């Protein structure tokens, strides 16, 4: 059973509720699993096709990027520039221990001159990652466009080791800027970047995080980031779950590693057309003896492309029935799968915690647990099977002592799952 809110405007997202079972047992205190799926609205179609972008592409040119990585990063930048439209703005910044504005923020009209400049970038010294972000952010902020998408896209293969390096402090600053309209996406490249830093920058920056292992794939990631931006209809998205106190309803757990804002609401990724967002909650309540129960309300809020904050509430109801009828109800396979995928992601994060604590056997146990979960599923979907392959590969890497890479993969996969990111083909 699904319920959707009805929205008169076609440019509003919708919320879909899918309970594991489509009823409650009369008069009983019980737990239920609920999948809440947010379907983003189509991105507004304008004469130009999409809202204008205001971007800074910030590239790491530290010594470790020398050779193919830097060349591919430059090609990726060139490919990104070629996708822009004349009404977009873009700047290109590079950093080692010092920061250079290679292309100051300008309309994307004279692309060839910009591209020629990007091709002159050469590799250098250490990694002033924060300073690079700062300069890129200033390029974007100077031309802040309230009707557009303002974003810093930062690529790094290393550890911040010059200037401000405290990950928590950097994330706090990135978050402060995203509250003021400029978001941040981070691309971690290779096996030596600081995944904790880049992941927390993306999470607090209301942007994306990507883990990229092969230099040859860099252009694809830039391209998909731009495509995502062009299909975005909302940012700084939050989901509040408001359980109905009348039935002593409470949210026991939300699966997935989602941050909460100062009101305790879940912070969701941007609303991107064609990418529904899934949140699974475990709820406890005491059902009444008869009738239809209002279980909870979901409050979805987002900032639209016009810069205005919007919100709506949708209510989720379930009918009550007797125990026998309840037991006969089938489980919704989609809910089972969504819950299982998020549960696997949780174990991967636990595996990483064990790795960090030096508990190798604990980490292996968590990873094996993921594999066992998938194998226990009756009819694994393509998505579940792909997750199984990833988990087995993680086990292998970790066994072979490739800890750094295993950690990066485990974290990025768990992140992708929590963010409902579609799998890349």
């Amino acid at each position: 059973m699904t319920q959707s809110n009805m929205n008169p405007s076609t440019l509003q997202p919708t919320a879909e509720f899918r309970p594991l079972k489509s009823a409650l047992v009369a008069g009983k205190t019980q737990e239920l699993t609920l999948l809440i799926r947010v379907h983003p609205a189509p991105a507004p179609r304008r004469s130009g096709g999409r809202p204008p972008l205001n971007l800074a592409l910030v590239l790491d040119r530290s010594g470790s990027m020398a050779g193919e990585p830097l060349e591919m990063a430059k090609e990726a930048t060139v490919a990104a520039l070629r996708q822009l439209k004349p009404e977009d703005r873009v700047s290109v910044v590079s950093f080692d221990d010092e920061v250079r504005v290679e292309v100051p923020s300008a309309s994307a009209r004279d692309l060839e001159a910009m591209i020629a400049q990007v091709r002159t970038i050469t590799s250098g010294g250490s990694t002033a990652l924060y300073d690079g972000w700062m300069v890129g952010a200033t390029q974007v902020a100077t031309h802040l466009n309230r009707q557009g998408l303002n974003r810093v896209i930062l690529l790094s293969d290393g550890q911040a080791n010059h200037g401000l390096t405290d990950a928590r402090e950097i994330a706090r600053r990135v978050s402060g800027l995203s509250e003021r309209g400029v978001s941040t996406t981070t691309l971690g490249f290779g096996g030596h970047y600081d995944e904790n830093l880049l992941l927390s920058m993306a999470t607090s920056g209301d942007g994306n995080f990507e883990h990229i292992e092969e230099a040859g794939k860099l252009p694809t990631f830039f391209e998909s980031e731009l495509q995502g931006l062009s299909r975005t209809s909302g940012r700084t998205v939050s989901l509040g779950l408001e359980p109905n106190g009348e039935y002593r309803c409470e949210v026991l757990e939300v699966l997935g590693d989602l941050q909460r804002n100062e009101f305790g609401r879940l912070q969701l990724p941007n609303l991107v057309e064609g990418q529904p967002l899934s949140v699974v909650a475990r709820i406890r309540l005491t059902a009444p003896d008869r009738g239809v129960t209002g279980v909870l309300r979901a409050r979805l809020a987002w900032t639209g492309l016009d810069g205005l904050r919007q919100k709506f509430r949708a209510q989720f109801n379930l009918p009550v029935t007797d125990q026998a009828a309840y037991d006969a109800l089938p489980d919704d396979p989609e809910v089972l799968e969504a819950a299982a995928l998020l549960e696997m992601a949780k174990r991967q994060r636990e595996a990483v915690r064990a790795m960090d604590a030096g508990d190798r056997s604990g980490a292996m146990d968590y990873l094996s647990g993921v594999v066992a979960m998938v194998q226990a599923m009756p009819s694994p979907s393509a998505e579940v099977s792909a997750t199984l392959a990833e988990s087995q590969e993680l086990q292998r890497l970790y066994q072979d002592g490739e800890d750094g890479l295993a950690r990066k993969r485990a974290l990025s996969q768990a992140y992708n799952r929590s963010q409902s990111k579609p799998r890349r083909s």
Partner: protein
Amino acid sequence: MSGHALPGSWTGTLDDLSQLANTLLPQYLPLDRSGRTQDEVNPRLIRHYTTQGLLDPPLKEGRGAVYNRRHLLQLLALRRLMVDGHSAQALKTLLGTQNDAELEALLTGEAGLKVQSSNPALDYLDGLKNAPSRRVFAATPPLASPLPSTAPAAPPLSSYTRLTLAPGLELHVSQTARLPRTPAEQDTLAKQLLAALDTLQRKP
């Protein structure tokens, strides 16, 4: 100034909002405007602003619509800025994105240049650059602070630089003046300057 103070927290109906706004509004308007009945608001006007997207929608829709302090701040700021000559269209994207403290700051009269050019992202980054230590940032309050604390503290010593733009036309720039940095801000300032000169020409 009348003795009515902006409440620290408030909720009420549409009629309450309208009445309270009319009580508070005079103290935020220029002296020669305070007390003019055509500057007053009424429930119909407030609903109109809401449908135009100038105010956040009420907390509950329909008959039992509930408004809060933020709506009050938005409404007061909107009226004040319109009296200052800003078009509703120009304000459309502004009020919804300002936080409560920023709305209060608009009300207390740092309006002018800051209104049209407000660039919270750039201000924020400037703050980061000028910070002596990271402590400062941990403490940056993003939201509501009480009214008195948002009033700018007077600088202990004021120093001005005099620039001669043309014979007989000089510009005095305070050390503490907020100079335009973005193209939009520069544009706005240029227009303000020309408009100011224009009023001179019209005077007999």
